């Protein structure tokens, strides 16, 4: 066992897949000799050469499109978006070309598009986004969003091996903040489509993913201490396809559910989760399904503004307390 950060775990996963399978290659902006803006691919060029770690022009559509073409030919490209905010520049390529390829034309397109997401880092409107809702609506894509170092590694490896296109969202606030003991020399894989109970509880469930898993765990701890509440935290890990079974299991167990995400509210993933619970587990509910999310504004830069807009641990505590008392 060795203690590794979330970022190092992701890096290890990429490295191991590059070692294992010669068809895996990386392309993106500054990923080569520079090692990527966050150093996820540091040392990769030295080990794997320029042909497998390709520095590209600032052209997200070309990065994703070229990855798709290579994937049709049997390659397993991993495309980096330097910040996930720029994935919108490849929106057409992902939603119209990549996502439909298997369905309309029987074309396998096993690509991974990954990049640093999320706020709490004072990044402002264009270096803090969570783009999941924009792609969640598109049949043909898969979306994973690890919260732990173990899943950062397990999900990148599973995404690379998956036969469909996967958007891998990694949270930059977790990059160096989260550390975990991981086994060495073991093929660590996290199955796509399976949620994880991050904390057991019986009084109320929090369904969440990404950085807010940690905010929710912090809130659960506080609620246990101050209110004697046993809060269950479900870390979705995969958003598409969504693990309905795990969601309904926790709803049936606690009968109250709070959905927490960092992304904005309207049209966000929480709305879909609420609808699914309503359709599949209505009879099990002892209270309304409630949401804690960012406010519906572009994410502002100033610490006071960002802190106000994004969901904080204290927001989750208050909301959970309200729902527990319902």
């Amino acid at each position, binding site marked *: 066992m060795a203690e590794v950060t979330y970022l190092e775990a992701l890096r290890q996963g990429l490295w191991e897949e590059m070692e294992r399978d010669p068809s895996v*290659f990386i392309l993106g902006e500054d990923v080569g000799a520079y090692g990527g803006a966050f150093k996820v691919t540091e040392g990769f060029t030295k080990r794997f050469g320029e*042909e*497998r770690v*390709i520095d*590209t*022009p600032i*052209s*997200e*559509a*070309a*990065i*994703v*499109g*070229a*990855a*798709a*073409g*290579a*994937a*049709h*030919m*049997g*390659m397993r*490209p991993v495309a980096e978006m330097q910040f996930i905010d720029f994935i919108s520049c490849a929106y*057409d*390529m992902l939603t*119209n*070309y990549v996502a*439909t390829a*298997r*369905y*309309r*034309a*029987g*074309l*396998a397109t096993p690509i991974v598009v990954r990049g640093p997401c999320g706020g709490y880092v004072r990044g402002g409107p264009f270096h803090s986004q969570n783009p999941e809702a924009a792609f969640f609506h598109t*049949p*043909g894509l*898969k979306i994973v969003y690890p919260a732990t170092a173990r899943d950062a590694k397990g999900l990148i490896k599973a995404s690379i091996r*998956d*036969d*469909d296109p996967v958007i891998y969202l990694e949270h930059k606030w977790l990059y160096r903040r989260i550390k975990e003991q991981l086994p060495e020399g073991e093929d660590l894989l996290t199955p796509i489509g399976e949620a994880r109970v991050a904390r057991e509880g019986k009084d109320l469930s929090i369904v969440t993913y990404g950085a807010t898993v940690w905010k929710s765990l912090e809130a659960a701890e506080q609620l246990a201490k101050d209110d004697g509440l046993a809060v269950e935290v479900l870390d979705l890990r995969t958003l598409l*396809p969504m693990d309905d079974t795990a969601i309904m299991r926790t709803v049936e167990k606690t009968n109250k559910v709070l959905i927490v995400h960092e992304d904005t509210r309207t049209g966000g993933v929480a709305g879909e989760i609420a609808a699914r619970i309503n*359709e599949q587990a209505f009879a099990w509910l002892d209270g309304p399904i409630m949401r804690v999310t960012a406010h519906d504004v572009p994410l502002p830069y100033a610490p006071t503004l960002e802190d106000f807009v994004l969901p904080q641990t204290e927001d989750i505590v208050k909301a959970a307390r309200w729902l527990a008392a319902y």
Partner: protein
Amino acid sequence: MASRAAPTAQSPPVPGGLTREQLLDIYRYLRLTRTLEERLVALYRQSKVIGGLFRSLGQEGESVASAYALDRGPNRDILSPLIRNLGSMLVMGAQPIQILRQYMAKAESPTRGRELNVHFNDLERGYLGQISHLGDMVPVMAGIALTFKLRGERRVGLVYIGDGATSTGTFHEGLNFAAVQRVPLVVIAEYNRWAYSTPPEKQFAVKDLAEKAKGYGIPGVTVDGNDVLAVYEATRSAVERARAGDGVHLIEVKTYRRKGHAEHDDQHYVPKDELDWWAKENDPVDRYAKRLRQSEWVEERELQAIDGQAKAEIDQATDACVDEPLPPGASALAGVYAGPPALPPHWYRSL
């Protein structure tokens, strides 16, 4: 008239390395394309074609000739055709019956009724159908050519782009990426004068599309797109250079779209005399046949035999599929992902 651009590259005095059989083979693909499209018009008027019908009338020459310059056969060169490159797909081995089935949305069509017209692919035969978002195939073909380069395979990619689609961001991004990576890719830029109803002067401020090549640091030439042998020769030469590791090449083919954007479009925006001129004086099939006859490379009866065979082939293909069923509705739920094989229908369907 500006659109009647004089050819800037002449046909070679002797067809570049082509045998008599190959010259006839090219004529066969030209005739097959035109005959198949004429049949599709008839089926469209009978409402058997479900969606729109897109003609390549007047520009079949550049489609067929450019594809003919590729290395064809299982797992050889790959091209990405546009809506008006039916001819290029036939050259690569697409069967007329597949195209008829596609247009009629038959269950047995290559996409099982999911996609329209020539939007289908067979990578082994060497064609990757477009999607409707113009320009997107340039980055995708850059990725395919990149794979050829990474694997050290001596294969080439070829992608068509219309004059209008050179205005897209994906065209720029894809071409620039391909040029930087020096991948073996040939771009056929089709100057056919109309992007739906928009003329080139409202689309870009250069005179010739070949000028755009300079901005990417790649060679660009302009060819008379209705001179079959000139297009063949220019493509063959670019393909050879791309195969040898000389990177991306752009060939602008000057041609003319003689029909509307699709069959529904009455072309009221097109000057009538211009259409007549292109039909009478610059039809690529007529020009090619005339050249073959005048040069005495082939005999008239051989061309006539090919015309008859093309009609018979299309008759046979039509008869074989026109009454086939459409796909069953529930088959729509299969194949979004590699697994599970199909989604369940919504709950109210079983009420």
